[in-house]
C-alpha cells in the first residue's frame, strides 16, 4: 500500500465515527501478531529449572509437590485448580499451593517465600516462572476446577459476592468494569466474568505474558492489580479473598480447553 493511500485510510479510520469498527479490527490484528511472537515460552523454561532446583533449609526441590493429582504429577494439575486440599483444609489456587509446597517441602518460611511474588521484566518472580511451567503442562486439557467439596462451594459463593462488593475511594466493585457486556477501558475490552461465554477464554489463557510490561503475570497478580486500580488497600497473597475470586472466575469458565500461558495487553 502506498503512503498516500495509507494516510487516507488512516484519516478515515480515526476521524469518521463509523470507523470505530476498523480501529477494533486493527487492534485485534495487533494482538494476533503479538501473540504469534510471544516470549511466554521462555518463562516456562525458567520455571522448569526452578521446579527442579533444591532450595530452602531442606534443600529440596518442588518435584514432589502435590498439586492435587498426587506428588509430582504435573500433567493436568493446573486444569483441576483451584480445588480443596485436605492437608491444608482450604481451597487453593496454583500459586497458593506452590507456596504451601515451598513451606512444607522446602522448609521455607511464608515470609521469605512471599517476599517477592510479583516480579518485573528485569527479574521475573519465582512464582511467575513456576506458574508458567506448571500451567503449560495442562495445555490441551479441559478446565475442571473443584466444585463438590463444601469449602469449594463456599469459595465460589464468596467469590461471587466479592465480585459485586463496592468499596474503596472510588466506590468500585469488579462489576464497575466487568459488569456490562461490550464495554471497554481505553481500548481494552472487559469480559463480564459472571458469564461463562466470557469467563471461558479467561480461564483458558491465564497466567500470561504481559506485553505492556514485558513480564509474566499470574491470576494472583491480576486480583492484586485490580484491587490496586479499585483504589483499595492491598489483598494478601493467597488470601481467601483472592482465592475465592479466582475460583469463582475459573468455575464460571470451566469446560474450556486450556491454551495458555497466553498473552495480555
Amino acid at each position, binding site marked *: 500500500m502506498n503512503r498516500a493511500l495509507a494516510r487516507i485510510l488512516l484519516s478515515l479510520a*480515526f*476521524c469518521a465515527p463509523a470507523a470505530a469498527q476498523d*480501529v477494533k479490527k486493527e487492534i485485534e490484528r495487533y494482538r494476533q501478531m503479538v501473540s504469534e511472537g510471544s516470549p511466554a515460552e521462555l518463562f516456562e523454561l525458567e520455571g522448569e529449572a526452578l521446579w527442579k532446583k533444591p532450595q530452602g533449609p531442606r534443600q529440596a526441590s518442588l518435584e514432589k509437590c502435590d498439586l492435587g493429582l498426587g506428588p509430582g504429577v504435573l500433567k493436568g494439575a493446573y486444569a483441576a485448580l483451584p480445588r480443596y486440599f485436605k492437608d491444608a483444609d482450604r481451597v487453593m489456587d496454583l500459586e497458593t499451593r506452590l507456596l504451601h509446597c515451598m513451606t512444607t517441602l522446602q522448609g521455607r518460611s511464608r515470609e521469605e517465600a512471599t517476599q517477592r511474588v510479583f516480579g518485573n521484566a528485569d527479574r521475573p518472580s519465582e512464582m511467575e516462572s513456576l506458574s508458567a511451567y506448571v500451567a503449560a503442562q495442562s495445555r490441551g486439557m479441559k478446565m475442571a476446577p473443584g466444585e463438590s467439596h463444601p469449602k469449594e462451594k463456599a469459595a465460589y459463593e464468596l467469590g461471587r459476592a466479592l465480585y*459485586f*462488593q*463496592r*468499596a*474503596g*475511594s*472510588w*466506590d*468500585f*466493585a469488579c*462489576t*464497575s*468494569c466487568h*459488569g*456490562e457486556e*461490550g*464495554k*471497554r*477501558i*481505553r*481500548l481494552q475490552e*472487559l469480559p463480564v466474568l459472571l458469564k461463562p461465554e466470557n469467563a471461558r477464554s479467561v480461564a483458558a489463557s491465564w497466567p500470561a505474558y504481559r506485553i505492556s510490561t514485558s513480564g509474566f503475570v499470574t491470576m494472583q497478580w491480576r486480583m492484586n492489580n485490580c*484491587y*490496586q*486500580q479499585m*483504589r*483499595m*488497600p*492491598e*489483598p*494478601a497473597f493467597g*488470601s*481467601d*479473598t*483472592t482465592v475465592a475470586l479466582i475460583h469463582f472466575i475459573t468455575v464460571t469458565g470451566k469446560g474450556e480447553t486450556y491454551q495458555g500461558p497466553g498473552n495480555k495487553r
Partner: protein
Amino acid sequence: MQRDFHARGQAGMERVVQDGIQRVCTETHNQPPAELARRLEADQMKTIAFPQASLIGDWKSGERIAQNGRGMQWTDAPGTPNGGSCYNCHQLSPKEISYGTIGPSLAGFGAKRGSGPELQRYVYGKIYNAKAYNLCSQMPRLGYSGTLTEQQIKDLVGLLLDPASPVNQ
C-alpha cells in the same frame, strides 16, 4: 476483608469499610428502591461545594487531567496531583482514539448543549459527586473522595463546555 487486606501506601484500611451508599448499591446490585435512592441522592447533593463565580477553567489543563489515569492507588505518591481517569471510560476529544465506553460519549458535549450557568453547575456537580445524580452510578465521586481539587474540576468543566476545547470541535 479486614483479615485479608492490609494498608499499603496511601490506601488505608478505612477504604475496605463500606459507606451507606456502597452498601445499598452492593446489596441491591445497583438497583436501589426509588424512594431510598432519592433520599440518599439528596444527602449526596449536600456534599457538593459549588464555588462562586465562573465554573469554566482551563480546558488544556482539563485535557491533561482527563488523560491521566493515576491517583489514589497504593502505588501513587500522595501529594502529587491526581488524574481524573476520564478517557478510561468516556470519549471526549474526538482526536483521542483510545477511549473507554463504560460511560457515555462526551464528544461534542458543550457544542450540543451550550455552556450556560445551569449546565456549568450540573457538570461541576456531576464530577464532584456523581452519586448525587444517580445513586449507584459507576462513576467515582471525584471531588467528594478528595481525588480532584476545585480547580481541577473547573478545568474539566472547561474541557467539556469551552467552545475552544477539542471536545467541542
